[in-house]
C-alpha cells in the first residue's frame, strides 16, 4: 500500500544512490526530523559520523514518544509532558481523582439511570456550567500562534482553581492533564503537550469543571491566526460542526427522542460535504461526568428514550472533512481521523426545561470565537498557502 512517493524515496547516505525502503533513523524520528530514510543498516553505519551532526543541530529536548507509530496525518505529539499539576485539597475532588477510576459511573445506576434534576440540582448545574464557560473563554483568548497547548492547560488549571473547581479531565481514566486540546486532525481527547500552535491551525478546547458536586462540560473549536480563517476547508468543517450543534439543540424539549439528534446532525454535515465521527457521543452529565443517556451523533441509531424535563445531557458533534472513522494514538487518548483530514467539534451542556431547553454553557456576549463567513478565495492566480 506504499504510495508512489514512498517508492521513489532515496537513501539519505551521502555516498549512496540506492532507493530507500521504510527503514528510518530512530533518533531522527524521535526528534521529528522527517524523511531520514536509509537503504540499509550498513549504509547508515557508514554515514553515522556525518549523520549524527544533524541530531545535534535539531535537538530541542522534545521528542515523539511513539516514533514507529503510523500517524494518519502530519500532527505529532511533543513530549515530554509537563509535570503533574496539583489541585489544592480544599477544593472538592471527584471520586476518580486519585486512582483514575470513576467508581460512581461504573455502578449499574451510573450506567443506566437517567437522572431527573430537582431545582437545587439544576441550580448546581447552572453554576458549574457558567464557571466552565468562563474558563473556556479565558483559554480561548490565550490560544494564539506561538503558544503551546501545555500553556493552555496551565491557564485552564489555574482558572479552575481560582473558581474553587476541580478540572474534571485531570486523572479521569488516568487522563494526565486538566483540559483536552485537539488540533487539526485530532477528533477529541488530545493531550496538552509542548507543540506550539501555528498560524493556520484549528484547535478544539474541551473544558469540564467539577464544582459543588456537579460537572459542567463544553467545548468549541477556534481558528488559530488569520491563515486558518482564510482556509476554505478549515472554515467549512468548523462552521459545519457549529451549525450541527445549533440544529440539534433546536430540537431539544420534553418528548424529543434521543435518536433524533443524530439524524439532524448527519443531514446537515452531509449538506456541507462533511461526515460525522461515529465513535463518540454526547452523554448525560450531572454529579457524574459521563452517564446515561448516550446521544449518538449519527443517523439511524437505535438509542432508547426521550428527553424529560430536568434531564441534563451534552450534545457534542464531531464533524470531519473526510472519513468519519477514528484511530487512537498509543497514548490511549488522542483520537484522530483515519485519513488525517481535519475535524471540528462543538459542545454544550443542556438542561431540558418544561417546554424547551436551557443552554447552561451558552456563550457570553463577549466570548471569544464565534461563527465566521467562508473566506473569499482570491482569483488573481495567487494560490493561498
Amino acid at each position, binding site marked *: 500500500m506504499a504510495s508512489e512517493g514512498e517508492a521513489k524515496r532515496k537513501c539519505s547516505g551521502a555516498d549512496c544512490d540506492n532507493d530507500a525502503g521504510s527503514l*528510518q533513523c*530512530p533518533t531522527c524520528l524521535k526528534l521529528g526530523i522527517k524523511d531520514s530514510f536509509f537503504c540499509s543498516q550498513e549504509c*547508515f553505519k557508514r554515514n553515522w559520523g556525518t549523520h549524527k551532526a544533524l541530531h545535534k543541530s535539531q535537538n530541542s529536548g522534545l521528542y515523539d514518544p511513539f516514533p514507529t507509530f503510523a500517524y494518519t496525518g502530519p500532527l505529532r505529539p511533543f513530549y515530554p509532558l509537563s509535570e503533574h499539576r496539583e489541585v489544592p485539597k480544599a477544593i472538592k475532588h471527584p471520586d476518580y481523582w486519585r486512582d483514575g477510576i470513576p467508581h460512581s459511573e461504573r455502578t449499574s445506576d451510573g*450506567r443506566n439511570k437517567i437522572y431527573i434534576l430537582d431545582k437545587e440540582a439544576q441550580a448546581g448545574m447552572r453554576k458549574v456550567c457558567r464557571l466552565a464557560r468562563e474558563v473556556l473563554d479565558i483559554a480561548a483568548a490565550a490560544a494564539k500562534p506561538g503558544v503551546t497547548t501545555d500553556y493552555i492547560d496551565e491557564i485552564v488549571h489555574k482558572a479552575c482553581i481560582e473558581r474553587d473547581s476541580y478540572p474534571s479531565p485531570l486523572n479521569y481514566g488516568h487522563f494526565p492533564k486538566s483540559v483536552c486540546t485537539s488540533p487539526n486532525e485530532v477528533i477529541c*481527547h488530545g493531550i496538552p503537550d509542548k507543540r506550539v500552535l501555528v498560524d493556520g491551525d484549528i484547535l478544539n478546547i474541551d473544558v469540564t469543571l467539577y464544582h459543588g458536586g456537579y460537572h459542567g462540560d463544553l467545548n468549541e473549536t477556534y481558528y488559530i491566526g488569520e491563515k486558518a480563517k482564510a482556509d476554505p476547508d478549515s472554515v467549512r468543517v468548523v462552521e459545519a460542526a457549529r451549525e450541527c450543534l445549533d440544529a440539534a439543540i433546536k430540537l431539544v424539549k420534553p418528548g424529543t427522542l434521543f435518536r433524533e439528534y443524530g439524524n439532524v446532525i448527519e443531514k446537515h454535515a452531509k449538506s456541507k460535504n462533511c461526515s460525522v465521527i461515529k*465513535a463518540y457521543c454526547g452523554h448525560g452529565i450531572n454529579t457524574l461526568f459521563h452517564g446515561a443517556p448516550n446521544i449518538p451523533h449519527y443517523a439511524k441509531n437505535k438509542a432508547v428514550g426521550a428527553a424529560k424535563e430536568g434531564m441534563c445531557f451534552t450534545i457534542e458533534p464531531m464533524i470531519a472533512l473526510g472519513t468519519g472513522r477514528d484511530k487512537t494514538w498509543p497514548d*490511549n487518548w488522542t483520537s484522530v481521523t483515519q485519513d488525517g483530514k481535519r475535524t471540528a467539534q462543538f459542545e454544550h451542556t443542556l438542561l431540558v426545561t418544561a417546554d424547551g431547553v436551557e443552554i447552561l454553557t451558552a456563550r457570553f456576549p463577549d466570548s471569544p470565537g464565534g461563527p465566521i463567513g467562508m473566506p473569499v478565495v482570491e482569483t488573481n492566480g495567487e494560490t493561498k498557502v
Partner: protein
Amino acid sequence: MDVDDEDSPPLLVEVEPSSNDNLEESKPLKVPITIVTGYLGAGKTTLMNYILTEQHGKKIAVILNEFGDSVDIEKSLTINKGGEQVEEWLEVGNGCICCSVKDSGVNAIESLMEKKGAFDYILLETTGLADPGNLAPLFWVDEGLGSTIYLDGIVTLVDAKNILKSLDEPVQETVQHEEHDDHHGPVLTTAHLQISHADVVVINKADLVSETELLAVQERVQAINGLAKLHVTVQGQVPHLEGFLLDLHAYDDVGTLDVSSKGHSHLDPSIATVAINVPVLRVDQLPNLDAWLRSILWDSKVPAPDHGSLVEGNDHDTIEVHRLKARLPLSNGEVKIVQGVREVFEILDSPESTNSIDDVAGKIILIGRHLVDKRFEESFLNSIR
C-alpha cells in the same frame, strides 16, 4: 536529553506504513457473533467442542463471559483453528471512557481482529445464570457504526431431563433481572429468560427422557418462545451447523414468523408468545407504528384499544417484552420488518416486496411476560389509524 553521544549508530527502525489508502467507507467484512446460553450441565461445553470439531477448518473465537455483563469480558479468549487453540487477551481499553458509543467488549474484539485477522465465527459462552437479554443489545451494534462484528443470534441449550423442573421452581439462584422482582406473579427463572430470548433452542440429552417427557418439554419451550427453532439432540450434535446454530441472521431476517405454539400460550404461566395480525399498512402509518412500538417496548404500556378504556395492569402485571419480530407489508408494495430485543428496536426495509410473497397480511410477534389477554391487536389497530 542525550540522544546520541554514543559512537555507534542505533539500529534503523521500520515505520508502519500509514494506512490512509482505500479506507473510505469500504464495507467492512462482518463476523457473526453467537451468544450461547444454558444452565450449568445443559451441555454448553460439549456443544462448543462439537462446533469446533465440525468446523475445524474455520477460525473460531470462543469467549467466556463470566458475569453476564460485557464489562467483564476482559478475560482471555480462545481462538481455534485447525484443531489448535491459542489463548489471546482482550484489551479492554480504558473501560468506558467518555462518550464512546460502542461497548468496550465489542471494541476489544474488533481490535483483536485488527491485529490477528478476522475470525469466521465468534461464540460468546455465558455462564449458567446469565440473562442473555442484557448482552444482546450490546452486540446488536448500529449499522452506522461500521462494526466488524454483528449479532447473529442467541442459542440456548436446555437439558431435557431437568428443564421443566428449572422452569417451575427457582433454584437457589436469585434471578438477576432488573426491576421485576415482584413476588406476586408466577415465578420467573433464568431458564425462562434464556428461552424467551433464544433464536434457537437446543433440547439436549434427549436420550435421558421418555418420548412423552420429551414431547412435554418441546410443548413447554414452544409455549414460551414460539419463534425459536427447536433442535432435539443427544450430546449436542446438530447435523448441519450453518443455519441451525451458525449463520442464523436472527437480527436481520425475520423469516416467515410462523408461530408453532398456537393454542398453547397458557402452558407456561410466566412467559408467552403472542401473535398479532396486522393489515397492510400505508407509509403514512409508519410513524404511528413507531410510536406504538415505543409505548410497548420503552414504557411497557399498551396503548388504549378504544376510546375511554385503558389496558393498564396493576403494578405486578406490567408487560415486559423480551423479543419482538414483525413483518409488515405496505400498500406500496414494500415490506418492512421490525426487530426488537428488550427496549431496543429497529424498523428495517425487507429485501422482499409484496409481489414476491404469497401472504400479504402482516404479523407482529411478541415474546415476554404478562402479555396474554392484553388486546394488542385492537390496541395496534386503534393506534395506527
